[in-house]
């Protein structure tokens, strides 16, 4: 489904990080495996916009927001106007992996709150990052921890999502 996007994102990251394409895999964690920092993330979104002709919505976060417990932070982001952010997309992917893809927002939120780090990692297609424990419930994470769980594949899926026609 997202091969075109996965290849494209891998190419971008390989060039940006001066890494061989084989070292940038679908399951690579952006922060832990690839050393993507905040500037790198900005560069990545910029390059994706250019390459795929999509508009990458701002993460709508602030330093204060990033320190909030993860579910509360996400709720605040959802309440803000604007398109679906990468964080919101990850929440959907977790809900989807746990069988709540078509559920209403309230159910999705409940499912997400009861998920663990391992569930999020599985949904993102990556390993559990060393900085987090697999069994930690999502409700004990802070919004900023979500950065650690972002994989190359999730970014590619997100690009596919942004490119898909909206009803």
């Amino acid at each position, binding site marked *: 489904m997202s091969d075109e996007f996965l290849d494209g994102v891998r190419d971008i990251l390989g060039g*940006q*990080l*001066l890494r061989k394409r084989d070292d940038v895999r679908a399951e690579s964690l952006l922060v832990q495996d690839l050393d993507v920092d905040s*500037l790198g993330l*900005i*560069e990545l979104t*910029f390059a994706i916009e*250019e390459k795929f002709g999509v508009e990458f919505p701002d993460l709508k976060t602030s330093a204060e927001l990033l320190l909030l417990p993860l579910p509360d932070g996400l709720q605040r982001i959802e309440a803000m106007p604007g398109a679906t952010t990468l964080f919101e997309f990850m929440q959907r992917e977790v809900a989807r992996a746990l069988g709540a893809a078509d559920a209403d927002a309230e159910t999705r939120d409940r499912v997400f709150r009861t998920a663990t780090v391992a569930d999020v990692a599985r949904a993102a297609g990556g390993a559990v990052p060393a900085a987090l424990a697999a069994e930690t419930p999502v409700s004990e994470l802070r919004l900023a921890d979500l950065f650690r769980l972002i994989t190359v594949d999730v970014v590619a899926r997100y690009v596919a999502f942004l490119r898909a026609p909206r009803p």
Partner: protein
Amino acid sequence: MSAFGRRRVVVTGLGVVSPLGQDAARMFDALCRGESGVRPIRRFDTTHCRSKIGGTVEDLDAAALVPDRAGQLMLRLADWVQTMAFCATELAVRDAGVAPGAVARERLGVYFGAGRGGAEVSEALLALVAEAAEEWPKLREGDADALYSRLAGSVFGALNRIRPTSYLQQCPTFVSGFLSIRHGAGGPMLTNVNLCSAGAQAIGEAAWVIARDDADVMLAGGADSMLNAAELTAFSNLDAVSARNEEGPEACKPFDLRRDGCVVGEGAAALVLEEREHALRRGARIWAELLGYGASSDAHKPTAPPEDGRGAVLAMERALGHAGLDAADVGHVNAHGTGTPANDVVETAAIKQVLGAHARRIPVVSTKSMTGHLIAGAGALEAAIAVLCLAEGRVPPTRNLRVPDPRCDLDYAADGPRALPDLRAVMSNSFAIGGSNACLVLGRPRA
């Protein structure tokens, strides 16, 4: 006793990225042979530029010089000026034999002179605006205001496509910033943008950081390139640049009656400045001692020095005073010597005022006719040249001086290089547009 009191400051490393290459000793040899790094500019289309020649850096292989991935990731973010500074400092640190981590973070600092930088941004912007302007013929409907508004919309739309990292490239601070990150320099960091005096001032002020015990080692220098269409054209319009494009390496004629301006150069030079005891303890090679530094401002006109050269005089007097030297101790002056009608006559008078009769007994040389004027990099490159003069006991000639100007009546070594085996102290002048003046006094290492 030097200006810097008990904490004497010595030079233990040199690195240059110059129009005459990146090997400091070879560059110095070339200068002594009177060779020039001035050539036709090939990097961009000069059709509409008044100036078409420059002291260009054409052979820098940054990837070979900085082969490690961490360095390359940083160079990916760096623009041309930042890249040259990065490479010159890499060479200087290697020359000094300072291993990574050998100096405690808080005892290592970075002071650099830097040009505006970000030429790639301004050129990308010009291209984007041109692209937006192409939309103009398609905008036929509406009145003039509506047309203007739509065109402006296209231009601002284009602005949004400028890469986020471009912001870093147009900030002069990142000349020092990248160096600080690269070398783990957690001590004081400063970027000086005082145009032609910036590099010399960065070195002089860095010495004071060591003197006041805020660092043991400072990476200090300057880097600049105005060799891009926008800056070169604007600078040429100030009438500071020679119009003799067809003369190429002969165009800039310091102290010559026919002089009509400088030729713009580009490059970077870095010195490793070190507290003397610190250098002795680690058995470092000591190139020279930085004896004194003086600074002043003309407080006069934006682009012209006062006829009495009082700013230049004050900078030189302070540098000599801080160094505790008499005029007779100075064996050579590396002049600012831009080859502009105003500078060379005012500088000559100022040198005579400071050194008196002794001014006529020593070679006063401008190396700018061979390197081009590196603007914010000039003072640093010339400080490196002064260090090499002391180390090798010889000074390069002033190239292209053939018709003496009666008002420029010193010995400019127009006839060729001079052997000065007993050379003990060199004065290096840098006087900037905007009025800032700096003078460094460097001496042969002594007990």
